[in-house]
C-alpha cells in the first residue's frame, strides 16, 4: 500500500525471467522428443548443404558399367539401373525436397497468417467472404488440385510452390484466424483502434507478436505435410523431372528393380521417412513446449 508521496519503488534487479525465446529453447531441450526431432531435421539440412563434400560421385551422370550393383564399399547403397550411386542421389535428393518444401511452407504460412489475422481483425463481410472461399478450396483434394495445376502450367519448382500455397493456405488461415480471434478483443487492440491505426500496423504490432507460437508450430507441421505432398507428386511423375535426384522420383524409377537392388528404393524411403518423422516430432514438441509454458506462466 504505497501512498503517492513515497517515491515509487525502484524496480528490483531485472527479474530472473528469461525471454520467451530462451524459455522456449529451455523447454525444448528438456523434451527428448523435441531434441531428437530437431536433431533429425538439422542433420537433413546439413546433409543437403554438404552433399558435394560428402560424396565424390556425380548424382546424375549415367554409367552403364556400374548399373544395378548391390551394396559394396564403393557404392554403400549400391547403384540404380543407370549406374548412378544411390547414396549420392539420396544425399543430393534432400536438396530438392527441402528447398521446395521450405519455400512452399514459408509462402503458405506467411500468406495464411496475414489472411487469418486480417480476417480476425476486420471481421464482417471480409471474414465471411474469405471464409466461404477458403471452404470451397478446402473441399477439393490437394493432390487433385496439384495434378491439375501441374498439368496445365508445367512442373517447374515455382509452379509447385504456388500450387501448394493455394492448397494449404486455407488450413493455415483457419488456425491463425482462431488464434488471432482470441487476441483481437483485448484492450490493447482496442486502444490501437481508438488511436486510428491501420489494419496492417495493428496486425504487425499488436496481434502477430502474440501468436508467434501458433505460427511456428503451424510452420513445422505444414512443412512435414508439404514434404510428403511434394514427394508424392514426384513419385507420380509430376514433380521433379528426371534425372534430378529426388526421393519420390527415385522410388518411382527403382520400384521395378526392387527385387534386384532393394536399396535403390529403400534408401530414399528411409530418408523421406526420417525427415517427416523429425518434422512431426519437432512440431509436436514445439506446441507442447509453448503450451506447457502457458500453464506455468498462468496465462
Amino acid at each position, binding site marked *: *500500500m504505497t501512498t503517492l508521496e513515497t517515491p*515509487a519503488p525502484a524496480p528490483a534487479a531485472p527479474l530472473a525471467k528469461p525471454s520467451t525465446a530462451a524459455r522456449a529453447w529451455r523447454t525444448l531441450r528438456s523434451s527428448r522428443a523435441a531434441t531428437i526431432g530437431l536433431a533429425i531435421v538439422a542433420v537433413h539440412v546439413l546433409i543437403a548443404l554438404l552433399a558435394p563434400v560428402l560424396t565424390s560421385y556425380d548424382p546424375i551422370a549415367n554409367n552403364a558399367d556400374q548399373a544395378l550393383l548391390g551394396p559394396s564399399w564403393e557404392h554403400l547403397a549400391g547403384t540404380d539401373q543407370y549406374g548412378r550411386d544411390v547414396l549420392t542421389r539420396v544425399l543430393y535428393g534432400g536438396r530438392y525436397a527441402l528447398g521446395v518444401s521450405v519455400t512452399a511452407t514459408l509462402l503458405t504460412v506467411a500468406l495464411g497468417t496475414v489472411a487469418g489475422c486480417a480476417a480476425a481483425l476486420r471481421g464482417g463481410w471480409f471474414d465471411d467472404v474469405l471464409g466461404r472461399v477458403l471452404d470451397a478450396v478446402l473441399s477439393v483434394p490437394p493432390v487433385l488440385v496439384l495434378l491439375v495445376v501441374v498439368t496445365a502450367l508445367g512442373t517447374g519448382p515455382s509452379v509447385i510452390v504456388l500450387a501448394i500455397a493455394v492448397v494449404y493456405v486455407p488450413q493455415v488461415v483457419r488456425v491463425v484466424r482462431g488464434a488471432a480471434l482470441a487476441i483481437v478483443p483485448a484492450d490493447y487492440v482496442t486502444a490501437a483502434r481508438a*488511436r486510428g491505426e491501420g489494419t496492417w500496423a495493428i496486425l504487425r504490432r499488436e496481434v502477430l507478436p502474440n501468436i508467434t507460437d501458433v505460427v511456428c508450430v503451424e510452420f513445422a507441421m505444414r512443412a512435414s505435410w508439404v514434404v510428403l505432398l511434394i514427394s508424392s507428386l514426384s513419385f507420380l511423375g509430376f514433380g521433379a523431372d528426371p534425372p534430378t535426384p529426388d526421393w519420390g522420383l527415385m522410388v518411382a524409377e527403382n520400384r521395378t528393380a526392387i527385387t534386384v537392388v532393394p536399396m535403390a528404393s529403400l534408401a530414399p524411403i528411409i530418408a523421406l521417412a526420417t525427415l517427416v518423422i523429425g518434422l512431426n516430432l519437432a512440431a509436436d514438441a514445439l506446441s507442447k513446449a509453448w503450451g506447457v509454458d502457458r500453464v506455468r506462466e498462468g496465462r
Partner: protein
Amino acid sequence: MTATTAIVSVDSLSVAYRSGGRDVSVVHEVSLDVRPGRTLALVGESGSGKSTVAATLLGHLRHGSRVTAGTVRVDGADVFALPARELRRLRGGTVAMVGQNAGQALTPSMRIGRQIAEVGGDIPVVDLLEQVRLPRPAELARRYPHELSGGQQQRVAIAMAVAARPKVLVLDEPTTGLDVVTQRGVLDLIGALRDELGLAAVLVSHDLGVVAHMADEVTVLRSGRIVEAAPTGRLFAAPQDPYTRRLLASVPRLDDAGLALVGEAGEREVRPRAVVSDASPVAVSARDLTVDYGSSRAVTRAVDGVSFEVRRGEVLALVGESGSGKSTLAWALAGLRAPSGGAMTHESGDLAGPARKRPLSLRRRVQLVFQNADTSLNPRRSVGDAVRRPLRFFGTAGSRAEAAARARQLISDVRLDPAFVDRLPAQLSGGQRQRIGIARALAGEPDVLIADEITTALDVSVQADVLRLLDDLRRERELACLFISHDLAVVRGIADRVVVLRNGVVVEEGPTDAVFADPGHPYTRQLMVAALEPDPDTRPLVADAPEWTDAAEPDDVWTELGDGHRVRRWSPLAREGVA
C-alpha cells in the same frame, strides 16, 4: 482450540509450491475455526492466499502446490489424510463450494434441472430452485444456463451447493462481478439459507462491504499470513493491525465529501473537491445521443437520447449497472462505435465519425483508459513501447530520442519509476499496469479522458492510489474526465457531477453532493441502498426505494431540483400491479 464444537478447524496450515527448485510459501501457519451456523470471512488483497486456504477445506490444492505443515479438519475428518473415495463424499456431501463465476461452473449444454439433479441428494429440483428464490422453478429447470442472468446463474450454483445438504459452505467471491442490486439479493439469499440450514460458511472476499454485511468473524490475510482475526464488529470498529487499518481506510465511503487520502498508519483525510469554475470551457458534449446494437431487423438500443457536457478540469461520473449503456457511450465517444443518432462535439471539432475518420489532432484529444489492466497492455511489448507508440503516432514527439525521453517523463508523471520502460507488462502489478494505461492515454496530450471502470479490477488500496492519481492529473492538466463506474462510493469521492443511467436512459443527474444527499429517482435510491459499506452497523443513507414506473412525457421529462440536479419523472407503482 474449540475442536469439539468447531466443524471446520484449520491448524497452522502451510502451503507451498515449487518453483525453480525451491519452495515458495503461499500460505504460512494459518489457523482458524468455524462453528456451525457461523460465517467466517477470509479477507485480503489478491495474492494473499485467501482462496488457497478456502480450497483446502475441500481438499483441493492448485496444481504443483502441497501442504507443508498443519492439518485441515472438516466435520472431524482430516481432509488431506482421507482416501479418495471418502474425499469425494466429503466434497459436495459435507462441504460444498460456490465459486466466483457461476456462468463457467454450469455446463452450457445441460438443462438446469438435470444439472442440479446430478449433484445427488433427495430434495426435488423444483424445491431447491424455490429455496434459492428463483421465480417459476418448474419452467426454469428446463432452461439452459445461457438463458439465465448472472444473478440467476449464481442462484442455481447455490442450489447445487445446498442440494446434498452440506454442513459447510465455502463461498469464493460469490458476488464479485455481479451488479450491486443483484449482489445484494444473492447475499441476502446466502444469509437466509445459512440460517435456515444451520450451515457453517467460509466466505472469501476482497470486498469489505460484503464481509461487513455477511460475516460473524473476520480473518485478515496478507501474503499468506494471518494479520488479524477478530469478530466482525470489533474488527471494523477498532482494527488493531496497521495493515487492517489501512485496508479499511482505503475503502471509499458513500458519505465522503471528497477523495479520501490514506496515510501509512491508516488515518483518513478527505481532500476537498477541486473547484471547477463556470468559466472553464466545455471540453466535450453529447446531445440526444443514441447508439444501437444489432442488425436493422432486431435493434437493441443501448444508449437512448443521452445528453451531457464535461468542462475542462471536471469529472463527470456515469453510473449504472451492467447493461445500462455506460461503456457503449464511452466507445461511441472514442469513435469505436458509430452512434445512430444525436451529436457529439469536442471543443475543437465534431466527433461524429469513427476514430479513423477523425483528424489526428482531434483523435489524440479524446483518450480511453480501460477497465482490465491485464489486457490493456500488449504482453509482448515493453511498457516503454506502449507509451512511445502514441507519442510517435500522434506526432506529439518528433524524434525517436524525444519520444523515449517523453515516455520516461510520462511514466514518472503517473508516479512510477522511469526505469520501468524496459519491463514487460507481466512484470508489473495490476495497479502499476493501470498507471501505464493512464500514461499511454496521456501521451496524446488529451483534454478528455474516458476512464471506463478503471479501478474495478484493482484491490482497494491500489484503487485508492489510482483514484488519487486521476484526481491529481485532472487538477494538473485541466483534464475533462468521463468516469464510468458502477461503484457509487468511488464516484462519490472523485466525481463533481453524476449521471445515473438505466437501460441507456438518464434517470437522474446533478452535482455529486446534491444527488447523494437527496437522490430523487427510485433507481438511484435502489443503487444506494444496495451499496454495502465496510461497517456492520451502518444505516442505509436513504430509505428503501419504492416500486416505480417511468412517467416521463415527451414534453415533460424532467423534475428540476435546482443547481442542475434533475430527475426523470416517475410515478409509484401500485402494489397489485407487480407481476
